[in-house]
């Protein structure tokens, strides 16, 4: 297996395969009940990120900004944070404001925790929203660091040593998955009769119904009370194969501070990784896996067998966030798809190892694993190898068009289809949908290329 990183020698980034850290943090804060994300930086930071996320989620996306001006850059952003917090409170009456920094505020050295303390001190008699700060300089890591950093900041700021409930509670840190995934995970927790602290949970806030009246903040999300309760949970589950090696996460903090046992799994994509989640939940709850899921697993395996010939040996290229790609690579290995290229714009030096772990060894010599790469590099690599399908987000369309290979859209962003929020990746049901979509695409390609026009496949 070959692996490569871009930053070994410097080259410009051409068509990035990652986004900046504040986006990930803003997404997390959108998943907290009655919360407003606040980016501490230039107006463009919030506007570009809002626009980018709206094109995917197709939902209102209010993200505030402290809106630096020239003077702010000289004198610091303290006054702007204060004014922004005042205005957010007046307009939105939030339970929580999630403050994420940007390259600008980090570079001038703003001390946001101090600003927050000053704000609290200046408003001693008022019922303030929870104020959570995460450092997300855009020059460090990708949107995934912003995402995981914000999740950690939430529990670090709010978790309390509450007494363990009679109904065992579990903290589930699902990683950056779709609203449909979050909804499915919540159902799974409920079916195990577990009280779940799902952090974040933008299943409703970013995939809600039409409204009868205007909501300043869309309903739904992880309640602040649930964030506080994370300290008293029976266990934490953290999803992400690359994340699993991260020394400082929400899960490790709860383990160190409150002795909450931590289970570090991959994203529950495919059979093996989903099995692990169900086993852990079964262990935590002391209940067997509900029949609904064993039956669903059974039907999934039946479908895999029925369609196995369509997929076995088909070469796929995977790209996107490190944990998503690693999860998908594992699934590919289970159904005979050969992940000839696994690429991510992030990775932090641990990506190849994570992919390695979940893909059967017999595929390794056919695989190329690239981290910290951009789309121009990925496309160049693909030109040199034989590949049948691309699996990744919408930004791979340009490449898919030039290479004339179909793109199966997963993850974020999905800017050129209507169902970004509804794509399901996790659990047996997610695996079923992935399998169906991939197999149907393979059949469709065969039909397109075949002159006879067979109606049976």
């Amino acid at each position, binding site marked *: 297996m070959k692996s490569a990183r871009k930053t070994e020698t410097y080259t410009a980034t051409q068509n990035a395969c990652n986004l900046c850290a504040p986006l990930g943090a803003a997404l997390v804060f959108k998943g907290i009940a009655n919360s407003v994300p*606040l980016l501490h930086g230039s107006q463009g930071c919030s506007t570009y990120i809002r626009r980018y996320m709206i094109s995917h989620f197709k*939902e209102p996306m209010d993200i505030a900004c402290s809106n630096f001006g020239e003077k702010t850059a000289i004198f610091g952003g303290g006054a702007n944070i204060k*004014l922004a917090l005042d*205005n957010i409170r007046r307009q939105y009456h939030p339970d929580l404001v999630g403050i994420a920094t940007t390259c600008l505020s980090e570079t001038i050295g703003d001390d946001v925790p101090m600003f927050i303390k000053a704000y609290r001190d200046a408003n001693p008699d008022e019922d303030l929203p929870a104020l959570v700060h995460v450092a997300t300089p855009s*020059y460090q890591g990708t949107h995934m660091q912003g995402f995981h950093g914000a999740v950690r900041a939430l529990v670090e700021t709010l978790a309390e040593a509450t007494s363990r409930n009679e109904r065992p509670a579990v903290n589930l840190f699902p990683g950056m998955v779709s609203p449909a995934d979050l909804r499915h995970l919540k159902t799974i927790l409920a079916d195990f009769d577990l009280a779940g602290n799902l952090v974040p949970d933008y299943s409703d806030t970013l995939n809600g119904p039409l409204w009868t009246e*205007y909501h300043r903040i869309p309903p739904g999300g992880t309640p602040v009370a649930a964030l506080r309760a994370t300290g008293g949970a029976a266990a934490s589950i953290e999803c992400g194969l690359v994340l699993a090696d991260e020394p400082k996460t929400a899960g490790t903090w709860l383990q160190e501070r409150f002795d909450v046992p931590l289970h570090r799994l991959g994203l529950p994509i495919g059979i093996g990784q989903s099995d692990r989640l169900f086993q852990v939940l079964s262990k935590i709850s002391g209940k067997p896996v509900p029949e609904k899921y064993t039956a669903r697993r059974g039907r999934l395996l039946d479908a895999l067998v029925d369609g196995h010939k369509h997929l076995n040996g088909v070469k796929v290229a995977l790209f996107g966030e490190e944990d998503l790609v690693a999860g998908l690579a594992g699934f590919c290995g289970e159904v005979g798809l050969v992940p000839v290229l696994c690429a991510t714009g992030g990775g932090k030096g641990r990506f190849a190892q994570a992919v390695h772990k979940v893909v059967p060894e017999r595929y390794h010599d056919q695989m190329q694993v690239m981290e910290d790469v951009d789309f121009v590099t990925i496309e160049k690599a693909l030109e040199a190898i034989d590949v049948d399908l691309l699996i990744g987000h919408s930004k791979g369309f340009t490449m898919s068009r030039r290479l004339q290979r179909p793109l199966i859209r997963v993850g974020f962003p999905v800017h050129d289809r209507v169902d970004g929020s509804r794509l399901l990746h996790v659990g047996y049901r997610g695996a079923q949908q992935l399998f169906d979509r991939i197999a149907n695409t393979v059949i469709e390609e065969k039909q397109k290329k075949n002159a006879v026009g067979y109606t049976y496949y």
Partner: protein
Amino acid sequence: MSSIPILEARQAQIHQKGTQPFEMDCGKHSLAGSVSQRACVFCGSRVVLYPIADALHLIHGPIGCAAYTWDIRGALSSGPELHRMSFSTDLREKDVIFGGEKKLAAALGELIDQYRPKAAFVYATCIVGIIGDDVAAVCRKVEQEKGIPVLPVHSEGFKGTKKDGYKAACDALFKLVGTGSTADIAPVSINILGEFNIGGEAWIIKKYYEQMGVQVVSIMTGDGRVDQVARSHGAALNVVQCSGALTFLAEMMKAKYGTPYMRVSYFGIDDMAKALYDVAEHFNAAPEVMARTRAIVRREVETIMPELNRIKCDLYGKRAAIYVGGAFKAFSLIKALRYLGMTVVLVGSQTGNESDYATLQDMCDDGTVILDDANPLELSKYIIEKKADLFIGGVKERPIAFKMGIGFCDHNHERKIPLAGFEGMLHFAREVHNSVTSPVWQFAPARAAVLESKKEVAR
């Protein structure tokens, strides 16, 4: 309906015609925490320069600014498509400490060798000045080495508003103007400024002018080319669209080259026709130009009229809200909507100035809400209160309309359909019609009551 609060500090930027003395407190830096729909200085520069298709556009800074503007607009090119790539120096933590000049020089060298552009624009993002990079010096050095213009764009996000970004882009363009040959430029010739060829709009406009017998020397910047910009000072007239994005350049060209300029709009039948007649009038020494113009307008209007008339029947009496970047576009949209038989109940812009708002005030009916630099809550409040059937805006406004069951027409840079020109008016009418007449609104809870009450009135 729970009432949506309006911030006190925002009240001087929101007016309802006929209810109070009109004085718009505009042109201000956006209020922190107000959730402005505006972007930043960088955005302004990027919007203006983006469509120049044979130039390298390198964004100097951390990855975000480049990632969010990759292939973001439907600005078409008839040839090279280098503008559709996203190039970034992708600064990392150690660059913030030690400076990014070396990476900038390396990136420029590498990309110029790889893509052979006709010029390079280097966009400075927020942190570039703060970490002490001398972008201009690096650009000068690379320019000497590579033999193409390498132009710094001073577009640090926080240094002003989007308008300052327009200015920075115009400054960069102005360095190219005057560097090319003006051979083969006729006396009856123009530059089309402020037209970005979204969905091929610039091609439509250019065709009209050429049919009039007017030579189009350059389009800035739709389907733009560096060589065209370089020789644009040879044109006899600058025709400037849009609320000022390229007015800065027109002013500079007037001062240095004596090129007169006029402002036009290509949206709606009246303004489109006026844009052609005004240019014909300018060249009245050649009377055949005006004769041809009349023929073109007649032909084009006759072509679109039958379908427009059918569409108008369905849209009569519907209520529209407009929130766009520049106020000049809003003027045209008001006229175009009125032509379709619709009423405008809300109009606002991100960057309008005092005289723009005075014009809007003159144009609007009593009771129309007029806003400057609005935010989602304000827009929601008024589209609901004013019972709008349609919202015209950009991607950020779309979900606000949809949640409340209101139709939407994208009139921003992401649209794929040309809305300018006479045929653009027809596309616009179809777009509006397509959204407003969809049966889905009957299922929208917030709209059901409004639609029902309108039916009652009709009966």
